């Protein structure tokens, strides 16, 4: 069974958000990495890119499929996890320890539309 972490926000498209001040740290969930299988590539935006909540900001690819990444919040990309460029498998090893991007949020109230761990687990149980 895929694990979740308490205290994070979760999106319907299987991203998680950890909030540090006004910065949202975004990754994909354990459920998502498990469904994708061994990841072979992570397509990330560039620092300073503007991204919109609900819009695509990158993609993850495995030998089975490619899946777009959707941003849970709007804002400016302040950092990307460059380690994933050479080691996409980090997301398979621990999806919650390895983030993908950090976003300076333009509207933190968007977090209210996301799920908590219990609600996300309930959603995954129905998938």
């Amino acid at each position, binding site marked *: 069974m895929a694990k979740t972490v308490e205290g994070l926000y979760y999106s319907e498209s299987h991203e998680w958000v950890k909030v540090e001040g006004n910065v949202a740290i975004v990754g994909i969930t354990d459920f998502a990495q498990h469904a994708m299988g*061994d990841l*072979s*590539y992570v397509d990330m935006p560039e620092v300073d890119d503007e991204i919109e909540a609900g819009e695509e900001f990158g993609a993850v*690819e*495995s*030998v089975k*499929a490619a899946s777009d990444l959707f941003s849970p919040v709007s804002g400016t990309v302040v950092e990307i996890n460059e380690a994933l460029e050479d080691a*996409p*498998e980090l997301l398979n090893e621990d999806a919650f320890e390895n983030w993908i991007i950090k976003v300076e949020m333009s509207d933190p109230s968007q977090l209210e539309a996301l799920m908590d761990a219990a609600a996300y687990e309930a959603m995954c149980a129905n*998938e």
Partner: protein
Amino acid sequence: MKYYDKLIFDLSKEGRQGYSLPSRKWNAVLADLPAGLVRGEEPALPQVSELDAVRHYTNLSQMNFGVDSGFYPLGSCTMKYNPKINEEIAAHPGFAGVHPLQPDATVQGALWVYEQLAKSLSEITGMAEFTLNPFAGAHGELTGLMIIRQYHMARGDEKRTRIIVPDSAHGTNPASAAVCGLEIVQVKSKENGLVDVEDLKPLLDDTIAGIMMTNPNTLGLFEKDIKEIAALVHECGGLLYYDGANMNPLVGMVRPGDMGFDVLHLNLHKTFSTPHGGGGPGAGPVGVAAHLAPYLPVPKVVRGEDGLLHMVGADGEACGRVSGFMGNFGVLLRAFTYILMLGNENVKMVGPLAVLGANYIKESLKDCFELPIDSVCKHEFVFDGLKDKSTEVTTLDVAKRLLDYGFHAPTIYFPLLFHQAIMIEPTETESKETLDGFIEIMKHIAAEAIEDPESLKTAPHTTPVRRLDETTAARQPILKYKDII
């Protein structure tokens, strides 16, 4: 099976040859070439005897698996048998020897085949006219979308830049639309696997160029609401594109033109028994309703006032040129042969027999494999992995184990609507005995998954190479011969 993985360069011995050409015969021509274009040293070609070459390619060919060697239920690919008479006709010197730049008057036979195949396909699909020029299915999709774009542009309706694609679509649909410069809008499927008309309605406005659909869809299910969808899309000013990858079950029974589609492509290598070329020559003819005929690409085959057929290369209204000449003619010829050999009566049996075979396998195996949508399918259907999920045996394991029993694996992990998708399409050319053999082995594998899961997780065992490390191949691909040695 003997394992053989040499490259022909591995066999090369300096000075060895099968045949020799007269030396220095073309020096006179070389003298006219600019110095920068003349090769300074001999090309590094393999030097082998005729026997070396024959043995090399014979051994390689025996590492292959094709419809001629066994059952190949690869969903969405329609791996039907390709009758050998197709090859015989295509090899006829009168066809094989023609050149695309010959004067029209000297290739009337070939142009007649082009014209007649276009007419036959129009009749089978209910479209008004066809171009046979596109070289593959996805090339046909791009051509069809170019025609749609050209139609809107010609009407001055330039804001129609968005195209609707269902979430169950073949991956080529959004890819072709992106290449054509269109923005993709996704429409969802309902629980029953069909396009959700209520989800579609709010997407329809004056920016919509059209919708791309395949019917039956990738779950093998007939889109029953197609007439309503066609009316809604047409009402908003959009056009309907039919992805003909799943045409096989409809042949002779139902016509996309009658469902309201304006443009379609056909995969001749699927529905019309031409070889699946491993990337080799394909053909993706595109048919259109009458109002789109002016926008078909050039060159076109047109009968002139002199009574002869001509290749017409310039046409102001056409969407452009998608091929140097008239498509992959040898492939077109095979498809035309197939249609003539079936004839008007037998062509009507293609669809029903393809549907019967798929439903027979589905019903025979649904106790062992998870059938997420339990209804009558068309030419193919999708299981969502094994019924018993407790074993942790995956769809990949099942597919690999099938190889041990001499079957090609079905399509797996597509469509993406189900996590453990296994997509099976038997086609109409397989006998009941072959289908029964496959069913028996699939049941056996389902039992093995419970009794001996390790034999599945480590499969295949009897193939020349064992399970490949696809992940490392994707993460650290070795793309050059020199990197291997």
